[in-house]
């Protein structure tokens, strides 16, 4: 539609007020003229008084249904309490009954109101003229005059020092507010904490969550133990330490295990211990497939090969899972030889630095 054509008799109010450039619009005159509104078609409720009364009854019927719904909701609230004998079942019944009744109360009003508008209210389409969004020249002149006068009376543009120092002052006022939020973070340096976990020399490997120590002989071929360090329970920051110290212990046949020279004595008789914290973004890598020796992380599907140093074989992770060097103590319980030799979990900026 070419904007300057085909408008109603009132003229192009918008175009007159805002003679704007049309850019690359092709304003060829198609020569076609807006035929104006089509004839209004009457509805059955306009023509037949019986239908009109039927529509009225329907509308009020919906409103009555709504009343029933609202009352029912109160009734159900009292009638269906949460019982001690069947807590889950009674919550189910209470939720369902309350929800259905309230829904009836709401839908009754909604459908009734819409039906009223559609069937009974006047459906003649009306036309309203737009004003150009841009103010008229007169208004804009007045507005401009307001600013000019204000400028003259205050000397804003003239008094450069006043103006510039104001801008500087206003710009700096929010800074203290920003700085105030610094104490959202604790004072201590975070990086050191990331490099240390509760694992140390001779700390026993224990079952998660009971904390009972694990004997090497408990770990059979094909098994997977979820492990936490002994003493985690007593830690002041239980979840924070667990978030770094969670470990997975698995046993493979020694001939299936590929070990590098430096890490040859980190396992014990085919038993290996790896950090459970994914090196991608930190989810627990917990899905162990005992036949394939693959470890799958359920969050973003990173896969690690336990038989080969937990190196990444698929998925967005970048680094293998850190290995916990283990041994056994005099009673045969699995112990750590030391802490992890690298930070666990996702990569961060100065991870490689010490």
């Amino acid at each position, binding site marked *: 539609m070419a904007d300057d054509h085909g408008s109603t008799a009132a003229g192009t109010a918008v175009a007159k007020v805002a003679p704007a450039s049309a850019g690359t619009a092709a304003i060829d005159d198609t020569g076609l003229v807006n035929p104006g509104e089509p004839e209004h078609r009457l509805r059955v409720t306009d023509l037949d008084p019986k239908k009109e009364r039927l529509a009225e009854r329907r509308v009020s019927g919906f409103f009555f249904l709504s009343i029933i719904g609202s009352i029912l909701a109160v009734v159900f609230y009292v009638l269906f309490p949460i019982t001690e004998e069947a807590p889950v079942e009674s919550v189910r019944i209470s939720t369902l009954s309350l929800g259905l009744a309230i829904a009836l109360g709401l839908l009754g009003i909604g459908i009734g109101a819409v039906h009223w508008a559609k069937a009974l209210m006047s459906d003649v389409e009306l036309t309203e003229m737009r004003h150009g969004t841009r103010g008229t020249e007169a208004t804009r002149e007045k507005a401009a005059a307001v600013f000019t006068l204000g400028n003259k009376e205050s000397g804003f543009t003239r008094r450069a020092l006043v103006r510039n120092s104001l801008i500087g002052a206003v710009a700096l006022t929010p800074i203290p507010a920003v700085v105030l939020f610094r104490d959202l973070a604790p004072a201590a340096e975070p990086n050191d904490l990331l490099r240390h976990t509760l694992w140390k020399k001779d700390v026993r490997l224990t079952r998660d969550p009971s904390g009972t120590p694990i004997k090497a002989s408990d770990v059979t071929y094909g098994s997977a133990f979820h492990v936490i360090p002994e003493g985690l329970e007593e830690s002041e920051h239980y979840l924070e330490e667990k978030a770094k110290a969670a470990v997975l212990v698995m046993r493979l046949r020694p001939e299936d295990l590929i070990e590098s020279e430096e890490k040859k004595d980190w396992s014990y008789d085919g038993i290996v211990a790896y950090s459970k914290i994914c090196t991608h973004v930190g989810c627990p890598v917990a899905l162990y497939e005992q036949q394939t020796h693959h470890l799958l992380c359920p969050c973003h599907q990173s896969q690690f090969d336990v038989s080969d140093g937990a190196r990444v074989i698929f998925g967005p992770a*970048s680094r293998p899972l850190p290995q916990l060097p283990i041994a056994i103590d005099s009673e045969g319980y699995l112990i750590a030889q030391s802490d992890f030799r690298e930070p666990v979990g996702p990569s961060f900026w100065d991870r490689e630095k010490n």
Partner: protein
Amino acid sequence: MTTEAPQKPTQSGGMRFTNAAANYIDERTSISGLVKEVGRKIFPDHWSFMLGEVALYSFVVILLSGTFLTFFFEPSMTEVHYEGSYVPLKGIEMSAAYASSLDITFDIRGGLLMRQVHHWAALLFIASIGLHMLRIFFTGAFRKPRELNWFIGFVLFILAMAEGFTGYSLPDDLLSGNGLRIIDGMVKAIPVAGTWVSYLLFGGEFPGTEVVPRFFTVHILLLPAILIAALGVHLLLLVINKHTQFAGPGRTNDNVVGVPVMPVFAAKAGGFFFIVFGVIMLISATFTINPIWNYGPYDPSPVSAGTQPDWYIGFADGALRLAPPHLDWIIGGYTIPMGILLPLVVLPLFLAAVAFYPFIEAWITGDKREHHILDRPRNAPTRTAIGAAGVTFYAVLWAAASSDLIATHFKLTIEGVIHGCQALLFVGPVVAYLVTKRVCIGLMKKDREIALHGFESGRIVRLPGGEYIEVHEQLSEHERWRLTSFTDYKPLMIRPNAQGKITVNQRLRAVASKWFFEDRIAPVTKAEIEQSHGDHH
């Protein structure tokens, strides 16, 4: 000089009361001015114009149900032992936030219902914003004078997603806690300041005891306040600019054709609020959402198969899944995890493209006129095709977030699904663009055919000479107007400026303009119609 509103001699008690009340208020607030201005304001009536209302009404539902929940929820991560009704969690150590969420669910009548209403309404809120944005995009309603309103709407979209994310993290359950873990991992990946920002967000090491109370403040105070303010401006601009309308007989760029606020629009819009509320209530009464009792309290050790965020964060999770492995760069001893930074950079770029699209298109067309008549999507083929490509890009990322569920349900491998999505991410938008553009142009051609020659009536007539023809029924003037009234743009012709130079800006514009408008179908002219009448019977 004020007088009492003139009263007719015979009036019912109700009428007298209303008149008196109206008079009382007007004498104190000048409300009659507002009523006069707004009362019979015309709103065009099309179903696709109601999508914004769906968003608005679901937001109201969220506010109402959320207020209920704030009376019972404890935003604290203090460790407690669960003493409520749900047997499989009895005695388990958990945060007060999780315990209070369980209490709302199992020990407060209507609590579970309100939790479900709140969460279903939130999903619907963001979905309807998305659909509303798509409608605005594909009909070109973002053109002048509504570019700013588009931008505000985009801001509302981001705020809504942030509300959703902070909201579902409040119960501190295993699923949302793992989501926070992922956020922590992403934040830590930021170069230089990553670990410090993580520390700031969680008030120390992850998970800490601060994140739930902080998210609570953000979720019920900060974000709603900003959202409501932005929403107010959004609606104010809508009233000032008036609503757009589709082309049609009697509709021009200078008028609005539709129904007045009082009584029709108010009845329909008001009724629609109750309908949206009722539908949400119906769904919440019958379908479970976020069964926190199954997940258990957050603990860094367990995790559930099928760990996904709420749908509107899916595109970000999918982006993480699609990054290839081994992308950590070590430069000068410092680690730059590109596998995480790539999504962190690409996604905001995509969102920025969405936010600034109106300004980009305005620059390409150079059209500074006001547009109050909507485009049919087919009449803006390149824009529609770009939209289809953008939707495809978003959809592939969204689908990638459910890669493991796609694998189990369609008996595929997760590796296959992820590789497939990685390929589709690049191929999909291109194919979608090409196909959509051709379809649009094809539809424009069809419209042209119908405008010129009418549509096939199914009547076969034998002419005296023995020839068989199918009679075409011509369109009425009203029907034809809809097909022929659309804005047509020509590609920009490069012209040297006043200094006789052709600037880089001009060249870029010309290239873009050519890309947008070279393939076009011009609207039918009167001359062509008359000529076609001459050709036909």
